[in-house]
């Protein structure tokens, strides 16, 4: 029994990790990460390439198992839970590289997570369309994200920027408590990035959002606090202006710029 465990679920942060460590092939990708994300917080996770940002997300979602350390979601220890069980506890994520149901329509792409969230996805003998409110909720979500006009189109026919929006729509459909966005605007032309930034900025206030991003415009626009990850460890955490002024952060980024 650890004395420093979160006291009660009510006061517990949306997401917390302590001493999270992981090595892949002898190379440490997470070195004792202590991280805390409060309910409704907007946080950016930045760091040079290979800092372990995506690995950290994979550890939190359960796609990677940590060598040591623990993870809590809303005060509950989820370290031993498989990814699908963590989703039920409120973890939602998007992928850095589009991971969509490419041959299915945009509408079906959001109906799948909605069915999972409602717990009806295992039902075999009733038409999916018979579920009251399911299609309506999917439709409302697409309208909110400006995807309604493409609802019937297969996702693979959409332009890349619209596909990134579907990436987010699938995660939002789960109504997560903690939303992990892995470079949501990566590769999106700046003309199309606006709708993605607006969507993220307009997320309900009770969702805690962690956004991994290189685009500093987006980071400053969305995040109130920033965590800087370097070589699998937290270098510093602070407000955007603190981070922008921090000499260590500048050294890391300048060093990277000089190396490349």
């Amino acid at each position, binding site marked *: 029994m650890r004395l420093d465990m979160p006291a009660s679920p009510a006061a517990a942060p949306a997401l917390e990790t302590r001493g999270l460590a992981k090595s892949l092939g002898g190379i440490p990708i997470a070195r004792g990460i202590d991280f805390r994300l409060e309910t409704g917080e907007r946080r950016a996770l930045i760091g040079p390439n290979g800092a372990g940002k995506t690995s950290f997300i994979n550890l939190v979602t359960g796609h990677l198992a940590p060598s040591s350390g623990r993870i809590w979601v809303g005060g509950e220890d989820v370290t031993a839970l498989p*990814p699908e069980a963590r989703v039920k506890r409120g973890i939602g994520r998007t*992928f850095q590289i589009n*991971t969509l149901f490419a041959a299915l329509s945009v509408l079906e792409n959001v109906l*799948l997570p909605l069915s999972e*969230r409602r717990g009806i996805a295992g039902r*075999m003998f009733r*038409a999916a369309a018979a579920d009251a409110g399911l299609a309506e909720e999917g439709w409302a979500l697409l309208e909110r994200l400006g995807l309604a006009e493409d*609802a*019937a189109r297969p996702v693979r026919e959409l332009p890349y920027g619209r596909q990134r929006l579907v990436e987010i729509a699938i995660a939002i459909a789960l109504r997560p408590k903690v939303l992990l966005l892995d470079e949501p605007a990566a590769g999106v032309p700046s003309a199309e990035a606006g709708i993605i930034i607006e969507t993220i900025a307009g997320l309900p206030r009770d969702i805690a959002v962690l956004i991994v991003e290189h685009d500093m415009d987006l980071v400053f626009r969305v995040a109130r606090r920033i965590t800087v990850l370097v070589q699998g460890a937290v270098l510093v955490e602070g407000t955007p202006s603190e981070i922008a002024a921090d000499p260590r952060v500048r050294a890391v980024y300048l060093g990277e710029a000089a190396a490349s």
Partner: protein
Amino acid sequence: MSAEAAPLTAAPSAAVAAILGRHRLRAVEALPWLCAGLGFFALPDYLALGSQILIMTLFAMSLDLVLGYAGIVTLGHAAFFGTGAYVAGILALHGWSEPISALAIAGAAAGLLGVATGLIVLRARGLALLMLTLVVAEMLQEAANKLGWLTGGTDGLQGITIAPLLGRFDFDLFGRTAYLYSLAVLLLAWWLVRRIVHSPFGHSLTGLRESAIRMRAIGAPVFRRRLRAYAVSAALAGIAGALLTQTTQFVGLQVLSFELSGTVLVMLVLGGIGRLYGAFIGAPLYMIAQDQLAKQDPVNWLFWIGLLLVLIVFFARGGILGLVDRILMAMGRRCA
């Protein structure tokens, strides 16, 4: 909520309504059954072939559920077909000659085998999965070959007698009872599979086919879903195999063969995978072509099937139904 977002579509479009209404029966779906009914009256000399077509259609439809919907690529589906066939044969030779209950038992046995082997093979993906499904079927065939006291070995099971259907209809020499029995079973199985593919579970199978990683990330128990699809498919394949035993009164080792697994795959690809009706096009086409070509050109008939398959793969991805879809779409565009 999004009142400020400029032009809003007020209501879901016709295309969206079409997606949501896909579970509703359309008139064109009566076509296979009309053809099957017509065949019964118009071609009384071909009812034996007709029964085999219906059985292979059922087998190919069972494969479509795992391959076309769940994206589980298997080259060993004959394992379940053959298990059903042998179970029905062994039951009949040991005095259990009532056909419908034997059919249910054979289906259950094949379904259980689907669970047992699925627990192992479904942990693999891609080529490894393909090899494992193949190995399971090969092992079963070898077992059936060795267990001569139970399976008749290379001689197969002969002298099978089946009691009259529902206690009234004898399995006659002309194959009338066999045909209508196979048709009724196919109709029931089609109804079941159709319900499944339009259910939330069926939709989640297409999700698994498209991206298992994403399905996991939205909270789906991926392995359990695949296993359930595999078991249902195996049970249906077993029922198809049992039907073959009951309607031909014979079981041979070929029901477990790699060749049969390949043939049913070819049938499905010809018709179009992941469309429910691919089996209803591919199986009859293959069987009729085989019947006719084997008469015309008994040495090379397989070559013509192969040529047809090559043409389909090159020019009509999505099989014949995919081709029909594209022609209809092109015509619709011209009319609009």
